[in-house]
């Protein structure tokens, strides 16, 4: 059956409108729920750098939220380590900073959130400083959070996530076993230079004696390089902030 061109065009237009309405309607209805899910996922990632993944896995969404609220407070700093409370007349909070969007700006203009993990209800009693990370893996974006102890040198934990690394190879950065390799490593060398932590090529070696090296992932060298660059870049961006915290703790010790 051969239909006229008018029929075909009318049919296509109606179909497009109907499907378009259906999709935009769904996205409107589900939008708030999706935002909630994303915010929750973000909190889980931040907490993942601080407490074991198994503990987070058994928490309900409400427990994650209340735990996060009672134990984590946030500030936002700029590249010079100065706290930023508002920009262009708009109040700035860590929750409103989109790290992926900031990544595209020149680093002088970027906002850098800091998540401070402290004893319950007491923001003065700090246990860890958590810094976000963002960069490029082999196929797509990778990101994560690194927790530093109060000496601003020892890595307390790390979470890594990715958008499209190869399953079984680069995607292994999300595994607990890989992330636990970073715990206890140091980001400053003996002479006080920021050197970050570098994932090595090859797997199965013991780097427990070297504080700036972690065992690599076999078959995922490019993803590992991406993780290394990401760590180096972001620790560099936060260096000013890290040093202010560092010197204040040294003073406190003296």
């Amino acid at each position: 059956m051969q239909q006229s061109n008018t029929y075909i065009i009318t049919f296509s237009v109606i179909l497009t409108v109907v499907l378009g309405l259906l999709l935009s309607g769904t996205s409107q209805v589900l939008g708030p729920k999706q935002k909630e899910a994303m915010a929750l996922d973000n909190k889980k990632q931040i907490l993942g750098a601080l407490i074991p993944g198994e503990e987070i896995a058994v928490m309900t969404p409400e427990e994650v939220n209340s735990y996060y609220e009672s134990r984590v407070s946030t500030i936002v700093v700029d590249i010079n380590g100065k706290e930023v409370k508002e920009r262009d007349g708009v109040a700035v909070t860590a929750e409103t900073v989109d790290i992926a969007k900031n990544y595209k700006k020149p680093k002088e203009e970027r906002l850098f959130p800091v998540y401070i993990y402290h004893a319950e209800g007491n923001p003065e009693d700090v246990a860890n400083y958590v810094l976000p990370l963002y960069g490029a893996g082999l196929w797509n974006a990778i990101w994560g959070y690194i927790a530093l102890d109060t000496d601003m040198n020892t890595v307390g934990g790390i979470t890594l996530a990715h958008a499209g690394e190869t399953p079984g190879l680069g995607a292994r950065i999300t595994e607990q076993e890989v992330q636990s390799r970073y715990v206890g490593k140091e980001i400053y060398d003996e002479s006080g230079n920021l050197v970050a932590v570098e994932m090595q090529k090859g797997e199965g070696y013991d780097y427990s004696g070297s504080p700036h090296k972690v065992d690599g992932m076999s078959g995922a060298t490019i993803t590992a390089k991406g993780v290394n660059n990401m760590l180096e870049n972001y620790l560099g961006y936060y260096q000013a902030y890290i040093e202010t915290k560092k010197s204040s703790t040294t003073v406190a010790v003296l």
Partner: protein
Amino acid sequence: MSAETVEKAIAKKPAEALLSKRRKKLISDPLVDDNPVTIQVLGICSALAVTTQMKPTLVMAIAVIFVIVMSNFVISLMRNTVPGRVRIIVQLAVVATLVTLVNELLKAFAFDMYKELSVFVGLIITNCIVMGRLEAFAMGNKPYDSVLDGFGSALGYSWIILAVAFFRELFGSGSLFGLPIYDYISGLFGPDFTLATNGLMVSPVGAFMILGIIIWVQRTKTGYVEH
């Protein structure tokens, strides 16, 4: 539409049973004798990609069942109004809409699954089984039959990818649905007894091998030969 009245005129004979022999065959045929993966060799791409673990594979199977059944139903409803010259585009638009719906739902209600699967869920659009059933069946059959046909094909696809995932997760990661089976077994035989996992099974190569073995076993049993 005028097309519906034509159909009613033909359907004067007594209504066919809800699950008549012919209709049961629509579901059972694609399970083994005319399996979309092992006989028609369609949908191989996702059968390799998602099957490293049971849990995402199960979600993928459910998503594919939903998309195939719904798209078969919708296309079958419109089959007499769809202009022949743009039918492939129309089918694609319907499938793409359904896939986007699945993705949005996962994002809202199962964010962890969404993170793991969103790439593959998007690829359901290109799954040849979906378009294949639309072209071969839904364009020429009534909605109810089309739903059964789609369900059968989707089940045929699902059990194959679940079977592949079973072996890949067991041998590759030593677990099933995340339960550490190898650890349990080692526990039974004392601390010196350990089972090594096979890294090959985690890579797509492992899926090729298992799929090949399944096809081999199946064709030996059914005696199916490609012409």
